[in-house]
């Protein structure tokens, strides 16, 4: 079915074989944008005073780590995986086991979550990547159901239906969920601020890693496999091995995201690792923008913030009732979920390149104006 092959994705800014001067301007402007973004992210916890929105923001930062992982497998390597929830769970259980049961510090359990989830991905990948496209999506869907069954049955690890305590992030012996205090008992950072900076730090590390990965030989191999796998094979790229590596990296990042998530929540249950968790990540990548780093992060913030937006707006909507009932009725959570599905479809139909493209368009327009319309 050649008609359904993905059209070659536009090559990203600084990788294009464009004339040298253009490359330099673009690179510089990318740097400026990244600096602006990082500066803004550093200021956020001092500007945003709402606990609700700080919480949403921290969840978004944590989700962005997993979304970057999904970008590696789906955006870069072009494979749809529905298995992200399983690898998140593996990261979560690894962190809880090492952090709580073994009493190891975050510097051990967080990388360990990546390693164990990555290894699990490595076990599944050789079987999974033999299967292409749709079949991979469906095969990884099987992982979700098998995973949930394993967590629910392996009660000594998962705590059964009641769930279990997650590992706390302790820095200098202080649990970040209690905030960060100076030696003489003064609060330096609130719990929200402390967690925001911690999650942001992890996200920045992962962002740098994936950004470099994308520009590396391996990253280019991913994209070659995505665009024309047979041609990539002919060009000497080991197609299967490349897909396996993408799957492993993606699983490892999902593991980190899962470990962070449960650590921030403090508590987690086997039933939370559903298919919808994986769909969320796919949606982040799609809505944000396929194949771009900024897209994954933007998508994560959008997906995490949207339900809260609907919740906040729902009192002003006359047809939305407050409480759920067994007989139906439009409630804020149902409406936000409905809109969530609707937005996915709308983005796919009207802006397949995602929010990133929406943002880029005016920027490109201004840039074209400045450079005298030479483009």
């Amino acid at each position, binding site marked *: 079915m050649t*008609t359904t092959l993905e059209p070659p994705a536009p090559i990203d800014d600084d990788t294009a074989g464009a004339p040298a001067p253009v490359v330099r301007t673009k690179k510089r402007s990318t740097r400026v944008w990244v600096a602006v973004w990082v500066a803004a992210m550093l200021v956020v916890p001092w500007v945003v005073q709402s606990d609700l929105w700080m919480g949403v923001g921290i969840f978004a930062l944590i989700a962005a780590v997993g979304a970057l992982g999904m970008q590696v497998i789906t955006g870069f390597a072009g494979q749809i995986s529905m298995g992200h929830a399983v690898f998140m769970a593996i990261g979560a259980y690894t962190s809880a086991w090492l952090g709580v049961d073994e009493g190891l510090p975050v510097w051990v359990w967080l990388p360990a979550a990546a390693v164990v989830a990555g290894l699990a991905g490595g076990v599944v990948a050789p079987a999974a990547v033999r*299967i292409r496209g*749709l079949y991979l999506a469906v095969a990884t869907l099987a992982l979700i159901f098998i995973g949930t*069954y394993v967590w629910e049955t392996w009660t000594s690890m998962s705590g059964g239906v009641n769930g279990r305590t997650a590992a706390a992030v302790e820095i200098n012996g202080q649990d970040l969920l209690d905030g960060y205090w100076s030696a003489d008992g003064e609060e330096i950072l609130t719990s929200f601020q402390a967690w925001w900076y911690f999650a942001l730090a992890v996200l920045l590390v992962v962002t740098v890693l994936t950004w470099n990965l994308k520009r590396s030989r391996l990253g280019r191999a991913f994209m070659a496999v995505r665009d024309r796998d047979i041609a990539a094979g002919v060009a000497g790229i080991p197609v299967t091995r490349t897909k396996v590596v993408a799957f492993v990296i993606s699983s490892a990042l999902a593991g980190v995201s899962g470990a962070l998530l449960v650590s921030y929540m403090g508590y987690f249950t086997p039933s939370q690792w559903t298919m919808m968790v994986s769909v969320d990540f796919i949606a982040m990548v799609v809505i944000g923008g396929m194949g771009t780093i900024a897209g994954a992060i933007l998508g994560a913030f959008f997906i995490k913030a949207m339900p809260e937006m609907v919740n906040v707006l729902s009192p002003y909507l006359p047809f939305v009732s407050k409480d759920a009932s067994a007989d*139906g009725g439009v409630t804020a959570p149902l*409406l936000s979920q*409905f809109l969530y599905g*609707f937005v996915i479809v709308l983005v796919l139909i009207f802006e397949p390149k995602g929010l990133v493209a929406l943002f880029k368009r005016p920027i490109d327009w201004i840039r074209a104006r400045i450079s005298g319309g030479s483009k």
Partner: protein
Amino acid sequence: MSLFLQLGFQGIALGMVYGLIGLGFVIMFKGSHTFNFAHGEIVAIGAYSVLALMAVMPWGLAFVIAVITTVVLAVLIEAVFLRRMVGKSVTTVVLATLGISIMLHQAILMIWGVGTHGSAGPVGSGTVNVGSVVLPWSGIATIGTSVVVLAGLAYFFQKTPYGLALRATASHQEAALAQGIDVRRMFALSWGLAAFLAVVAGVFLASFPRVVSPSLGVVALLAIPAIVIGGMDSLVGAIVGGLIVGLIQVMGSYYLSDIGGGRLHEVLPYIVMFAVLVVRPYGLFGSKSIERV
């Protein structure tokens, strides 16, 4: 032995339900090159519609009207959303159906709530004894209806002009177009046909645990291992895969009840599916080309 036969009968009945749902997936996949993740929710909508309508009219009429509304809904979804995505990548289209699936699920919750309702089936919970084997009427109705529907479908595909046109579209879209077949109408036809099968299956699926609940859409996704085992583009494969999954589940729920908390049968179809995929990535009856999708 009679227990084994009884379980086998139930397994075949459940398998037929999965087969009908799976057939819907396969017909859409072949007819419009779309793997529709929202199909499970369409099954649920079918069952809910019958349930809602049978409260105010005789069952037969309720069924017919439910079929019409569900088919119209499916054709509308295809026309409003999926038709705009022709030519887009498989990933994009699959994601769109995931989005639609989420919308439909929330719509079900808005209309019918989170509660469970009684069965939407035409027959009660009675049983009949054949020798020493006890057969539930619901199982007999399921198998009987499925056989009739399948025979009708076979006739449709083999003997009618529309069936021929649909097969032509499935095997080669451009060639079918060149022969004067309205391919868009064929997309709609395949979705409508799938929706019809979904309503039939939904009614009987809701008679296995005898409830109609919002989780019906997820239960219907068990047709996915069925079609993967059978081969995603094979009509026969869907039925065979459905029967395999049905038998695995029913037999497993009895014979493996001591292992793994007694719930192993719930994931067994997925484990078998994974094993089949490793050996034959295109399923038992699928054509090798679908691996290329």
